[in-house]
């Protein structure tokens, strides 16, 4: 595809656990002329109404996140089925409150999964959406939680169906695919990356994983011919139960304000060098919807268990929508891309740019492509938009944080397992690379 000739660098930032309507639904509410399929008349339109015990719960704007989101909404496979509220081949998307109450026993009129942010709360995401491209048909590949969906993003398939307290079983990692093709890639981290859960420890402490503090300098000084062609930006995860520093990954109960500030920081760094920015494609998305409401039914995409899978019941649909943003000069301001995409669209894009075409990644990715999932390259325009680089002043984040605590949920225990093993295997090199590992307490026995 000729348009990809104009792109030298693909940058991917994957946040955690927010749905499309929750984060970007306000775009159509605040500008009714917008093409975005977000919120429209949410106080009366039936498609947003959730029902629990016959009572209707409507979307409401979140002004004070710590006061509203007091429990992490559920997002495991069984709960997602409740949320999507199936009848035959229809999905009513009316069970987000029901799943939340069943999980948390918390009943309140302003039920947390129905909350959404406006442009003052999701200030940086909103800014990028209005100035670049928003994908309003970006779905989580699977109606499940973090680990299977991240495996879909970075391997194209998954051997597990839920998040557990273990290192991830996987095949066909994107990093290996890129290594075989001599593609220059790099990960910038704000602490231990999720990639540590793949157990590739020498790689994680090696030169391809750099602290986020180096991003500005690298953007300014690194010659284009030596700079990475694919960059992954890792946020600071809420799963660092051993740390006192606030997370910026947006996973509840981490606050969105810190994630928005991190997004601003990354965008500012990527646009420091106008010549590089002119040939950069910055992709922002979320690993899964986090149990927050979305009104658009999932796509009927079939994913049978691959050979060696640790589950037997395949998936017949995607999960709910998640936010998807593409910031690059190669889209017109305010573009809305309605093409059907999921996390494997990133793999199609990389295969299209650096391989022989969008079908050059794997048979699993191709199976989704044949069912209608397209490459993110399709969101790009054939010509760059000629204009100054849009800029926005930062809003402060929050110092509130969960603080040091025992690992509670499976992903926190998975981070613990990865951190313990990394520390044990790589010793001082690991602590030197990720100083917060020094604060990691000795291995506790996992709780059931």
């Amino acid at each position: 595809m000729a348009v990809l000739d104009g792109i030298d660098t693909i940058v991917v930032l994957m946040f955690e656990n927010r749905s499309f309507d929750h984060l970007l639904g306000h775009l159509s509410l605040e500008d009714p002329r917008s093409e975005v399929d977000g919120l429209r008349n949410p106080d009366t339109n039936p498609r947003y109404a959730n029902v629990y015990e016959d009572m209707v719960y409507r979307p409401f704007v979140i002004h004070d996140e710590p006061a509203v989101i007091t429990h992490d909404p559920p997002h495991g496979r069984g709960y997602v089925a409740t949320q999507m509220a199936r009848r035959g081949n229809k999905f009513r998307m009316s069970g987000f409150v029901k799943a939340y109450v069943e999980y948390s026993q918390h009943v309140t009129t302003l039920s947390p999964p129905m909350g959404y942010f406006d442009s003052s709360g999701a200030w940086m995401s909103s800014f990028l959406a209005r100035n670049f491209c928003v994908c309003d048909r970006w779905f989580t590949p699977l109606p499940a939680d973090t680990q299977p969906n991240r495996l879909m993003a970075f391997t194209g398939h998954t051997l597990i169906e839920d998040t557990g307290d273990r290192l991830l079983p996987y095949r066909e990692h994107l990093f290996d695919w890129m290594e075989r093709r001599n593609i220059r890639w790099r990960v910038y981290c704000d602490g231990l990356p999720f990639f540590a859960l793949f157990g590739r420890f020498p790689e994680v402490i090696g030169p391809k994983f750099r602290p986020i503090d180096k991003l500005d300098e690298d953007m300014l000084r690194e010659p284009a011919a030596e700079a990475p062609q694919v960059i992954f930006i890792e946020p600071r995860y809420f799963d660092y139960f051993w740390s006192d520093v606030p997370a910026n990954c947006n996973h509840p109960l981490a606050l969105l304000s810190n994630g928005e500030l991190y997004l601003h920081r990354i965008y500012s760094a990527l646009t420091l060098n106008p010549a590089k920015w002119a040939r950069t494609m910055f992709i922002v998305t979320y690993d899964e919807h986090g149990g927050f409401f979305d009104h658009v039914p999932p796509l009927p995409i079939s994913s049978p268990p691959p050979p060696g899978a640790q589950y037997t019941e395949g998936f017949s649909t995607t999960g709910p929508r998640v936010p998807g943003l593409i910031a690059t000069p190669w889209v017109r301001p305010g573009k809305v891309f309605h093409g059907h995409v999921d996390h494997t669209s990133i793999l199609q894009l990389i295969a299209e740019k650096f391989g022989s075409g969008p079908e050059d990644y794997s048979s699993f990715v191709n199976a989704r492509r044949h069912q209608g999932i397209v490459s993110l390259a399709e969101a790009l325009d054939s010509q760059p938009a000629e204009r100054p680089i849009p800029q926005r002043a930062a809003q402060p984040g929050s110092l509130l944080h969960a603080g040091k605590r025992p690992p509670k949920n499976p992903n926190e225990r998975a981070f613990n397992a990865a951190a313990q093993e990394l520390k044990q295997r790589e010793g001082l090199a690991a602590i030197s690379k990720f100083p917060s590992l020094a604060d990691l307490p000795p291995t506790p026995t996992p709780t059931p």
Partner: protein
Amino acid sequence: MGEGMRAIIPVVLGVLLGGCLPKARVEQFTARPFVACPGDPITLSWRTNGNVTLSAEPTAPGLGKRDSSGRETVPLPEGSGPTVFNIHVSRFLGLKKTETSGEVVTPPLAKEYAVVDAEGEADFSCLEQERAVEAFFVLDAEKMAPGVLVGQVMNMNIRRLVLDKDGVKKTLGEGETTTFEGMRAQGRWSLRVPLEEGETCEAAIDDVDGRLIIKLQLACGR
């Protein structure tokens, strides 16, 4: 042992032991009915794995420490706003704790009720002879106190709706209101959507996004 050491030991023990101990859990907690008037009995029911403390905002008399599981009835505090009943569960000297809450709202207020065409939810009936789709919901004692009365009722659907409550039938156009003045909110509410010429039941259900919604203006009877 110095003061600093004495202060730090519980923190270190908490982090070290915290991961080994079973979590505090609220398996079940309800405050019913969801809608009630001041003085109405509210039944609190809970099942946990730890020491329980119950409280309410605004304060309700007689709450406090309880066994890990139980059920009891308290009067709804006076006041016009919602009452939030809290449950706090603690284990292992507070090393493991959790909490949640249930809200009871008090009329006067307007509240939407609905039936959803989804598995595990309501059943929509296709009435071939009457050329209509019908569904119902029941506001029982778990959902609505007996003293709560209905005033106006609004049709929140984009379709004409025939409402039936205790044998009283009313037909409402889109967005129209009618009155069921003085009738109890408790009971069976039947909602029927007449089909258009040539329309199938499935198409009619899709037309309302799989939901039939009404808004009840609720009041306390005394």
